[in-house]
């Protein structure tokens, strides 16, 4: 009988008969006798029939071909997901079956590979952020923020968390949704003109009910915040400072830990991971030593075996749900370990100098593009002051319209800020529809930047 659908079950018919005999059943049906008849399904599921491997691939190629991926265009999209170059070695390593097809390392003696890699990842995150303790990863930036808020609430036993509006609007939405029944209530502080956080307003709302202050660096519009000042405000009120950090920026920008952060979270997709329509990315969280026993998720620690040889294990598991159940610091169980491995490989490839180089190249090119765009008639600065690799400009036409117009020329001009209009208020919220968020990675050559400026110029002239 031909095999016309994929099937990963090994048994031949003879195997099935032998095995049924061992379990003293005459049919597979019998094994399901415990399932009451009225909840047994007799008709086949209404799903398309199975396909052979090559047909499945054809079908998935058809679906893939119905997309025009940003990676194939000259893209300036960012706003949380970045098209950085992933070195070729990353996929080779994360594709090795021993990493790819392993579960969480519950048996450390047979899992030293992934355990050591997580230990190394934790170290890398600590080094980048300037913090003492990093966990083995979170789902993404947004959920990491929600967890940070819960952590701050339980640590300070306070009921409010104050967020800069410069924190990614989707992260803020996730925080609101996920902590609806639990953890501190969020309050948002607007941005001032120029897109940096209004620190005076922040200082006004932070008080002794505040569990944490959250700022993002660079913030959603690319503005560089005064993290140290935010730390002062937070700490003066006995609150924690949570910083949402962009790991790629941390070769160039000061480590939040040095500026007073108590918790640093963020999204590290841009290290080693494909954009993949936004997931799976890589949430991370690092904390200062005193918060070590409050951090959610897996932690890997160093220990010794009974001969005194170094090894690595999951540790401080009494924080975790699988041991502590309802007393756990979080419900997170599966995390994004493989994405963390990818990030670690990418960071190892970049190394100490490479990360700084990368940041500098992005910064230079972003600054160049910003300057060129601001020369165009009607284009003005939305983000003011220094930026890292992303900034926003105000256009003389709706940003979404510009994006659409430039697609046929092979450009993805940026992310229209109007998409997030509901998430902003105050001076920075005016006329968001004309604001375009533009990210420049190392993939964008000067030639592309120049061509892009020319294309924008043409549209601006039209408009």
């Amino acid at each position, binding site marked *: 009988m031909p095999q016309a*659908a994929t099937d*990963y*079950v090994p048994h031949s018919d003879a195997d099935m008969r032998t*095995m049924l005999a061992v379990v003293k059943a005459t049919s597979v049906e019998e094994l399901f006798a*415990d399932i*009451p008849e009225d909840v047994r399904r007799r008709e*086949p*599921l209404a799903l398309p*029939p*199975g396909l*052979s491997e090559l047909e499945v*691939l054809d079908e998935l190629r058809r*679906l*893939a071909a*119905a*997309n*025009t*991926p940003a*990676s194939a265009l000259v893209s300036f999209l960012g706003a949380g997901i970045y098209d950085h170059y992933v070195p070729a*070695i990353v996929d080779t*390593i994360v594709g090795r079956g*021993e990493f*790819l*097809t392993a579960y969480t390392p519950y*048996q450390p*003696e047979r*899992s030293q590979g*992934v355990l*050591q*890699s997580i230990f*190394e990842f934790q170290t890398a995150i600590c080094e980048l952020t300037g913090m003492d303790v990093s966990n083995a990863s979170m*789902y993404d930036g*947004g*959920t990491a923020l929600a967890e940070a808020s819960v952590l701050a609430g339980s640590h300070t036993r306070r009921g409010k968390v104050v967020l800069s509006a410069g924190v990614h609007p989707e992260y803020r*939405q996730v925080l609101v949704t996920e902590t609806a*029944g639990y953890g501190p209530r969020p309050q948002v502080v607007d941005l001032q003109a120029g897109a940096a956080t209004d620190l005076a307003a922040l200082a006004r709302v932070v008080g002794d009910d505040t569990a944490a202050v959250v700022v993002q660096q660079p913030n959603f519009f690319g503005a*560089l915040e005064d993290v140290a000042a935010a730390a002062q405000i937070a700490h003066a009120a006995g609150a924690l400072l949570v910083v949402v950090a962009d790991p790629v920026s*941390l070769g160039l*920008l000061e480590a939040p830990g040095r500026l007073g952060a108590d918790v640093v979270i963020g999204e590290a997709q841009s290290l080693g991971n494909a954009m993949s*329509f936004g997931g799976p990315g890589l949430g991370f969280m690092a904390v200062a030593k005193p918060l*070590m026993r409050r951090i959610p998720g897996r932690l890997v*620690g160093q220990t010794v075996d009974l001969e005194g*040889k*170094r090894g690595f*294990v999951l*540790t401080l598991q009494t924080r975790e749900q*699988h041991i502590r*159940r*309802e007393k756990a610091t*979080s*419900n997170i*169980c*599966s995390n*994004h370990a493989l*994405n963390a491995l990818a990030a670690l490989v990418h960071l190892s490839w*970049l*190394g100490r100098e*490479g990360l700084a180089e990368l940041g500098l190249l992005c910064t230079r*090119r972003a600054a160049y593009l910003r300057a060129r765009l601001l020369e165009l008639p009607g284009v003005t600065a939305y983000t003011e002051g220094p930026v890292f690799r992303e900034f926003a400009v105000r256009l003389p036409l709706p940003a979404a319209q510009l994006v659409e117009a430039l697609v046929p020329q092979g450009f993805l001009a940026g992310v229209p800020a109007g998409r997030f209009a509901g998430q902003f208020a105050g001076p920075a919220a005016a006329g968001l529809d004309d604001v375009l968020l533009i990210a420049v990675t190392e993939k964008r050559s*000067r030639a592309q930047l120049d061509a892009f400026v020319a294309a924008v110029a043409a549209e601006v002239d039209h408009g």
Partner: protein
Amino acid sequence: MADAQGLPGMDRRTIYEKSCCGRRAYSLPATDVPEVPLDDLVPAGLRRQAPPRLPEMSEVDVVRHFTGLSTLNFGVDSGSYPLGSCTMKYNPRLNETTAQLEGFAGLHPYQPESLAQGAVELMWELGEWLAEIAGLARTTLQPAAGAHGELAGLLIIRAHHLAQGREPKRVIIPDTAHGTNPASVVMAGFTPAPVRSDARGGVDLEHLREVLAGGDIAGLMLTNPNTLGVFDENIVEIARLVHEAGGLLYYDGANSNAVLGISRPGDMGFDIVHFNTHKTFSTPHGGGGPGAGPIVVSAELAAYLPVPLVERAEDGRFFLDYDRPQSIGKMRTFYGNVGVLVRAHTYIRGLGPDGLRRVSETAVLNANYVMESLRGVLDVPYERRCMHEFVASATPLKEHGVRALDVAKRLLDYGVHPPTTYFPLIVDEALMVEPTETESREDLDRMVDVFRRIVQEAHDDPQKLLDAPVTMPVRRLDEAEAARHPVLRQRFPEDEEAGAC
């Protein structure tokens, strides 16, 4: 220098210990824009004082380091992995091929929807399929894992009650439940109300009635088959009772591998279901993740699903719908672990309804086969058929001074990954065995044979188990020490005393 040992991965230095000043693997385009002084770009005050001490290595060093590490690890590709409740089945490589197609992997979440129609179609289709498999109405693909699906589901339960002006607090959870269930209950703002299991391993109906009588019931979370591997025959009655008490039923789908196409949670009476794609739908677990935990809800609850919801318009176009006033909000940045969802889609598309049914039939047959073969070797507490997994107990070995953990460690020496040992809590010295459908009879026979041998060893020479493992890169590791003096990151020499690398 280390002693003679020829295999790779034996150099156990960390990547930081292998790092060497001035080495590098990276290359980056030359600066092609004006070299503005750095101070004019980013003021010194914002700039980093000390560089992060990332490793400095050549590319071959990086490749060798991680190749070596991988050989110290164990995956489904390495051998049998009967880790109960984790469904460590074969992860088809086809999934990897499809997920890596640039048309998926290269998509930015904020690119115009018109340029991502294939991805949205895939998500829509997968949602429809999962709804059919669950026997419920609408799907969200946002949750990143099972636990995240639980949280989403519980928030929907919360929204449902709030919409009716109620705010009940208690969510019933059997003592067999996975730790994520109670933890999620707390994170959603509820309190767990435990319910006992009966002698057959199912929910104790008497006790359930008692708990329900206590009122303030928001819902119940149940895994069925549960983590003992048994199917709760009273499920219809349980659902009736909970619904009567005003509660909703949440199905922890971690064990769905037992019932695909055979019994649907929706038909059992559940209102919300999550699937762990990294268990049931063959997406690889990657040493801890990423997975995906899509949830499916009944038609009545669809209004509360997180935004955006994947929709298909009249004209056949696919779109992300944000205009859902009753939605609980957003469960995560962007739309879900799309890369993982592509894999799950690939898997279901290939297997089809018959293939999925065969998965469950075989998973259940395999578990029963191993269970029957182990009767008399280990204790098997519940005298009934199991579903896709079963729990054995190493209690009889205690008299030899041997515990489940020792059996587990000795299994390592025989090349079999140990079963789950840390739960379910209600079985003493539990060994939760889930062979999965992709293990062959020979592999199962070998597994049984190894168990037999080890039990024999426990009788004849228990020290062998206490000393195990002896063939691994490390001997038994001191977990207590790790927790007592946590070392959670590399320490650099200069942290202790000043000095260059």
